[in-house]
């Protein structure tokens, strides 16, 4: 019962180094994909684009691409706010309600009182930020789960919206043109792209920068990763959470602006399904619902995946019914794939 152990492992301390030789091609692919966080969703998007391009010659036209960008602009913008909330291990069910409320505020104040575009817009941002702040206060002060807080405020904001709007749609013709600006187009290399789409892309870039390159961004990740550990490490976690919810509120106000431009009116009935839609985008984009892991760019890709599917299936003449089915399957497949990719330890 004696054994002589030949110490074959390079003694790099623990953990022990595993040998790479036995890996299958699939595992190799998995490793490759793992090296970039958003590469999973990006791969799904690419495959979807290729498939639809084959199915319909109209799909890859500049006009159609610009159209998809327009169609995802509202959800994509909302998803930016939703992502930072989810990164802190929260969730925001009230995002659609905040967006609708602020869109009504911007439009109705201007229509009723003749307030010019800029102050009306700023007022909307103020309202959005305050709504977000209220969520943040309830989360940090009452220490309630974000799901519950935003389930509650969803109802509150929606009621306020019905009350203030008197349930009436405000027409674009009654508003200052600044509010409609996001729906205007600009010629980019021969294709007409709306300012709303461009704004979404710029917002995604700015937020991605802030999350990656500022202390605030790090604190957002750390807070979502482990709240108590972050607090003990000297992060003002309550302040981080407040800033996140308030910023999200401001982002939803931006979405409201995009929405007004998109439908060239402000409707109190809009946005009722947008909470689940924006969460869907975030989740398909690879951000973890448990907080601390994910990226803004992923959420944009997530929104684009859903947009491409809906548009592509529609172009291919597939009934809405099957579009709905496809989106359901897509959510599960995309997240499974992402999970599989993440399983690899570096």
């Amino acid at each position, binding site marked *: *019962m*004696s054994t002589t*152990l030949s110490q074959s492992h390079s*003694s790099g301390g623990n953990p*022990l180094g*595993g040998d790479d030789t036995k890996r299958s091609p699939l595992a190799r692919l998995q490793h490759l994909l793992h090296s970039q966080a958003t590469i999973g969703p990006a791969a799904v998007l690419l495959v979807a684009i290729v498939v639809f391009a084959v199915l319909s010659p109209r799909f890859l036209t500049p006009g159609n691409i610009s159209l998809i960008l327009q169609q995802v602009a509202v959800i994509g913008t909302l998803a930016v706010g939703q992502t930072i909330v989810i990164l802190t291990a929260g969730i925001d069910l009230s995002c659609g309600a905040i967006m609708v409320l602020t869109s009504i505020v911007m439009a109705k104040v201007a229509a009723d009182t003749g307030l010019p575009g800029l102050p009306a817009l700023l007022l909307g941002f103020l309202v959005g930020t305050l709504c977000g702040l209220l969520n943040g206060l309830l989360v940090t002060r009452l220490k309630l789960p974000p799901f519950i807080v935003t389930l509650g405020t969803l109802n509150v904001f929606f009621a306020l919206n019905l009350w203030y709007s008197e349930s009436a749609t405000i027409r674009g013709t009654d508003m200052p043109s600044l509010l409609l600006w996001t729906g205007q187009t600009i010629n980019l290399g021969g294709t007409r792209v709306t300012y709303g789409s461009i704004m979404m892309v710029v917002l995604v870039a700015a937020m991605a920068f802030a999350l990656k390159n500022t202390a605030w961004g790090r604190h957002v990740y750390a807070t979502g990763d482990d709240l108590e550990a972050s607090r003990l490490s000297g992060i003002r976690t309550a302040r981080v959470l407040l800033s996140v919810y308030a910023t999200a509120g401001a982002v939803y106000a931006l979405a409201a602006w995009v929405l007004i431009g998109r439908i060239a009116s402000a409707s109190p009935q809009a946005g009722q399904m947008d909470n689940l839609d924006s969460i869907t985008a975030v989740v398909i984009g690879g951000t973890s619902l448990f907080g601390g892991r994910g990226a803004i760019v992923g959420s944009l890709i997530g929104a684009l995946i859903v947009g491409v599917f809906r548009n592509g299936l529609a172009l291919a003449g597939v009934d809405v019914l099957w579009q709905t089915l496809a989106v359901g399957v897509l959510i599960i497949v995309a997240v499974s794939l992402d999970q599989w990719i993440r*399983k690899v*330890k570096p």
Partner: protein
Amino acid sequence: MTTPVLQARGLVKRYGRVTALAGADLELLPGEILAVIGDNGAGKSSLIKALSGAVVPDEGEILVDGRPVSFSSPIDARDAGIETVHQSLAVSPSLDIAANLFLGRERRRRGVLGSVFRMLDRNGMRDEARRQLDALGIMTIQNPGQAVETLSGGQRQAVAVARAAAFGSRVVIMDEPTAALGVRESRAVLDLVLQVRERGLPVILISHNMPHVFEVADRIHIQRLGRRKAVVDPKTVSMSDAVAIMTGAMEPPGQFA
């Protein structure tokens, strides 16, 4: 040579790129306390997780009383009479002490209440829990109906240890049971380990505390880099030599029992 009660041969377990077990062996003889020592990350917990069915090894075999077995879940190991106190404790905070002791092996009432309505025998289990805790006499737990989350870390540890000691019929395994415990509480757990051996049950004890190990162990299994580096006798090998083998500073004697 006596047949080991529990034996592992050439266990391999990989986590992604990390190899936690690189061909690990282990033998547990009847009635002995086998200590397992090793650096952090040497694969001690991985080894006993394989032995207790908590993970399925990629390669290698496990034998109980000389017969190969294959554990696909903790239940299989438990059915073979192997009870484990995991490093992470594995208790359910919101359930009470009695419920935790009987978790996964609840008793049902007699008669139709039990067979048809599948009603739990709450009182029976509570009384039995009381008896077990008293018999082990390790800690001042007053009420077996208390939720585990209201207990201190030491008391929780006691519940987990009591469960293993009470239900183990062939082997009891404990992974660092005293790591978070105070001096007095550690003493109680060590006494319990000795008590279990007295009952004729062999024990595998993982610990970083050398004085404890040298006090209670009959043999010491030294784990290093995912393998068994040596097995030494605490009566013949000094503490510092054991540590030297463990850290790779010294080669083990060519032959070990």
